[in-house]
C-alpha cells in the first residue's frame, strides 16, 4: 500500500510540474500570438501539430535528447498540454470586448498595462478551462511514461500487463481515473465561479 501511495504522489507531482510549466509557457505563447500579427497562425499551427504526434512516438523522440526518466516525460507532457492552454489564451484575449479595449486605450493604459490589468484578467476563465483540459489529459497520458523509464502509476499497470495480473492493472488504473475525475470536478467548480464572476 505504501508503495501505491508513493506512486500516486509521484504521478501527481510529475503532472503538476508539467502543467505548471505548460501554463506559464502557454500563456506567454498565447499573448505573443495575440500581439504579433501573422505569428498567431504559426504558433497555433505548431501547437496543433504537436498534439497530432502519437504520444508514444513523441516520448521516443524526446528520449533521444533527454534520455530515460522523469524529465523526458515532463517535457512530453508540457508539449501535449500547450495546445489547450495556448489556444484558450489566444481565444480569450481576442474575445475581450473591443469596447473594453477601446476604453482601456483611451484612458491611457500602455500595452502591458492593458494586458495585465484588463485583457488577461478578463480572459482568465477561458484560460483556466484550457488548463483544466490539459491537466485531466496529462494525468492519463502520464501512464505511458513507464515505457521510457519514468515513475508514476504506469508502473503497476505495465507490470500487470506483463504478468497478466488483472488486480495489478486495476491497482494502477483506478487511482488514475479517480485522480482525473477529482481534478475535473474541482477545477470545473472553480471554472464555473470564474465564469459567473466575469458576467
Amino acid at each position, binding site marked *: 500500500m505504501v508503495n501505491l501511495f508513493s506512486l500516486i504522489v509521484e504521478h501527481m507531482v510529475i503532472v503538476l510540474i508539467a502543467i505548471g510549466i505548460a501554463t506559464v509557457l502557454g500563456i506567454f505563447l498565447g499573448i505573443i500570438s495575440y500581439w504579433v500579427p501573422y505569428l498567431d497562425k504559426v504558433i497555433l499551427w505548431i501547437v496543433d501539430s504537436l498534439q497530432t504526434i502519437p504520444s508514444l512516438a513523441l516520448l521516443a523522440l524526446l528520449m533521444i535528447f533527454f534520455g530515460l526518466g522523469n524529465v523526458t516525460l515532463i517535457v512530453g507532457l508540457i508539449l501535449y498540454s500547450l495546445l489547450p492552454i495556448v489556444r484558450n489564451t489566444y481565444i480569450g484575449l481576442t474575445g475581450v*470586448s473591443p*469596447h*473594453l479595449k*477601446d*476604453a*482601456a*486605450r*483611451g*484612458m*491611457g*493604459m*500602455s500595452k502591458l*498595462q492593458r494586458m495585465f*490589468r*484588463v485583457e488577461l*484578467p*478578463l480572459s482568465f476563465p477561458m484560460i483556466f478551462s484550457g488548463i483544466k483540459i490539459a491537466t485531466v489529459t496529462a494525468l492519463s497520458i502520464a501512464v505511458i511514461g513507464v515505457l521510457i523509464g519514468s515513475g508514476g502509476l504506469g508502473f503497476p499497470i505495465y507490470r500487470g500487463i506483463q504478468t497478466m495480473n488483472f488486480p495489478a492493472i486495476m491497482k494502477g488504473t483506478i487511482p488514475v481515473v479517480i485522480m482525473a475525475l477529482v481534478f475535473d470536478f474541482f477545477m470545473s467548480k472553480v471554472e464555473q465561479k470564474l465564469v459567473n*464572476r*466575469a*458576467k
Partner: protein
Amino acid sequence: MIQFRNVKKSYGKKTILDNLSLDIKAGEFVILIGPSGCGKTTTLKTINRLIEPDSGEIYIDGKDITKMDPVKLRRTIGYVIQQIGLFPNMTVEQNIAIVPKLLNYKKEEIDEIVHHLLDLVNMPYEENAKKYPSELSGGQQQRIGVLRALAASPPIVLMDEPFGALDPVTRDSLQEEIKKIQKKLGKTIVFVTHDMDEALRLADTIVFMNEGKVLQMASPEEMLQSPAHPIIKDFLGKHMNNGNDAENMVASDFMRAKVLTVPKTKKTLECIELMSRRDVSSLIVVEDDDTYCGTVSVDKIKAQGKAGKEIAGLVTMESMTVNRNSNAQEAFELLIASPTGYVVVLNDDNTVAGLITKTSMAKAMGEALWGEMTQ
C-alpha cells in the same frame, strides 16, 4: 483650447475628414453632430489619438499633440464611450481609480477622489464603491463611466454618444447631471451625438458636420434661427415648428387609416362574432360599391336583430362623418360632440378613409407638439 488645422483622414478611397479646421474654446460644452459617417466620431478620436490623422495638425493649448506620447496624452483627457466600457473584473471604486493609479496618485488622495465623485452623482460610497459593474443599472453604470473619466481632473473630456444606449428617463437625468458637472468643474467637453434634442439641450456650441467637413458651427439659438444648410434644417426638423402647422392640418392627419368595414349584406351573428374578436362595439357598414352607408352597434343588433338576418335594417347614421380634407379643428369639434365617440373620415368619393378616435386624435396632437412618437 483645441485647434484642428487642415486635418485629413481617409480609409482607402473613402474620405472621413476632409481638410477639417476647427477651434474648440476651453470650458465650452461642444457638441459634434451630423448624419452617420459624417466624421464626428473620428474627429473626437483624433483628439486623444485613438485615430491618427493622415495629415494636418491638432493642438491642445498650443501644443502639437502628435509630438506628445499618446499614452501620457490620453491620461490627461477623459474618455466616455457609448458602450460604457467599465471593466467587469474591477469594482466601482477600482474602475474610478484607474487613471489616478496610472498617474501614481497617493492612496489617500485616490480615496478622497472616489468619495467626492460618488457624492457628486448621489451614489453613496458605502453602498456602491465595492459593487461590480454588473450589479448596477445601465444609468448607474454610465454615471460611473463619467466619473471614471473625471477622476484625474482632466481639463478635457471626450464623450462618444455616452447616453445613446440609455432609456429616455435615465438619459434625461444624466444629461442634466453632466451639464451641471460641466458648469461646476469648468471642463471642456467634446460630445458626439446624432440626437438634436440632446445637442440643443446641452451644447454651448454645436458643430454640425457632414462628409468630413464642418457645415455650421454655432450656438443652439443661432442654429435654430438660421440653419446654414438644408441638411441641418432636416436635423432640426420638429424644433423648427413655429405653430403654423396646426392650422394646415386636416382630418386625415388625425385618423387611423386601417379600419374594419363590413358590407350591409353581412349577417347579424357574423357581425357580433367579428366585433367580439376585434374587441370593438360597432362596425362601419358600406354599400356594395364601398361607399359609406352607416354604422351598426352591438347593442342595436342584440336588441333588434334576428339571427341569420342581414344587418341592413339595423344600420344607423348616428355617427358623425367628415371629409378627409376638412379642417382638423372641425374634425376635433365633431369628435367631442359625437355620441359614438368616433368620427368616420370619408374620401371625396364617399368611401371610408379612416376613423378618428380619441386615441388617434391624442396621438396626432402629441406628435404635432413633441415630434414623432415611438408608440
